[in-house]
């Protein structure tokens, strides 16, 4: 996929080569995040999903729950964090220092701030979030100085097209089933500009 860069820029701003194996592993985790997004889609929630990974192990997962909870702040990231920090879980706040987030859509401003405040190590995401994005699209909450919590490294473009397709499917379905159907253009699923290879597992 053309979106995935061979290089990645680390915290200190230097460019480091990431090996094929690392990249493939990140794509695999993103596939897990996409599964969570798919679960959200099936539950009529905006299809965004995520997994948290520590020491090559998935230690948390979540998906959007804003409709079912009637709470506009129940985004995938916060849902997962709440589960991870729930009493009885083996995961502790300190563990975020060595944990990475894989989320299908760029975290919004709220989640980007929450991720600073728990002290996440780095964030990998699929597509940009043009309306609310807090890592690059609207604001740079992830890297700005002087905010609560710690800045973290973030990078988009992992399985971007699949994340975009999932969102488009959702909005086409919403527009088609709306009491007053929207313009025809909004009810047609566009895919020709996307390069979807589900086969890369």
């Amino acid at each position: 996929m053309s979106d995935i860069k061979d290089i990645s820029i680390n915290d200190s701003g230097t460019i480091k080569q990431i090996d094929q194996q690392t990249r493939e592993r990140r794509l695999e985790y993103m596939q897990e995040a996409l599964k969570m997004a798919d679960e959200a889609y099936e539950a009529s929630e905006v299809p965004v999903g995520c997994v948290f990974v520590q020491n090559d192990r998935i230690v948390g997962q979540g998906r959007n729950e804003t409709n079912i909870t009637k709470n506009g702040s129940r985004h995938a990231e916060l849902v997962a964090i709440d589960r991870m920090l729930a009493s009885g879980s083996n995961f502790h706040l300190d563990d975020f220092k060595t944990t990475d987030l894989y989320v299908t859509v760029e975290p919004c401003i709220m989640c980007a701030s929450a991720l600073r405040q728990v002290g996440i190590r780095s964030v990998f995401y699929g597509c940009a979030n043009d309306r609310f994005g807090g890592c690059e699209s609207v604001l740079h909450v992830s890297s700005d100085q002087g905010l609560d919590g710690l800045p973290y490294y973030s990078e988009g473009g992992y399985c971007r097209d699949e994340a975009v397709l999932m969102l488009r499917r959702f909005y086409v379905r919403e527009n088609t089933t709306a009491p007053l159907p929207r313009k025809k253009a909004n009810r047609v699923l566009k895919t020709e500009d996307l390069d979807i290879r589900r086969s890369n597992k």
Partner: protein
Amino acid sequence: MGIECRGEYILNRVLVEEEKQRLQTQDVYICKISAQQTSRILQFIALQGTEWESAEISVQKVPSFPPYTKEQFDEWKQLWPVAYRPLVQLKPVQLDDDERAYINENLSVVSQLQAKSDSEGNRGSAVIVGSPKAREAIVQSTDMTHTLVHPLKHAVMCCISKIADIELDKKKQGCFGDQCTNDNTNDQSEVQLVPAKRAHTPDIAGTPLVTEQISSANDIEDNAMEFTSGYLCGGLDVFSSKEPCVMCCMALVHSRIGRLFFIDPSESGGISYYSINSRKALNHNFTAFQCTLTSTQNLTP
């Protein structure tokens, strides 16, 4: 609520995004041709022959936005011709006595909740969400990060959860938002339901999300069922003893609140740092007020 008001709060509307913008500059080249690159300018100069031999190229910075306030205009016009259209002056906040009392009371309560919470070793803010229409508090919370050992359980987030749970309770009782049938009024916000008292609100993991710490909270919870309706926290008022952080301010945008009143500002807060309440890029804006207490007690020596 039996709250002793310690004085009157002065409400200052917080500056909106544009009013706070500072001089930002862009490099421009002024030349007879439309050259985008230094190399092209140099090329152009070379072609002019001896006439341009002594020409000096200098780079000057000029404003990249039109000024929004008079102060910006006075500063920026020194550098570059800029147009300034004075704004339709934003009127000072007009409040009738009832509304002033409602705002004063809720600010007094959050300030007292905060003091109590501080004395118990917590550090965050105290928040009340109220209905501007009924002029009554709906839910309240103090910061729960310490109690729940969870760094994100700020008072604003806890209040948003409580409002959501009230909505869910309504749904459980067979009242589904728009289809809500109500005999004597068409107004959705006047739905009369008997409030169900809950000891605590379970979160998704089944642990108590919010436990009542303040006894005066009960009458607030009693009002709770009646005044929320429609979309999330749409149009509600939020009173906070401290300026909410970036996460909380954005949660308020997602919840579509109407007004935010806070007492202590914070440099890293979502309003001071990013003007989250007034950013054009976001799909919802709200008015924010920074409120200062003019206490008669403070005036006496």
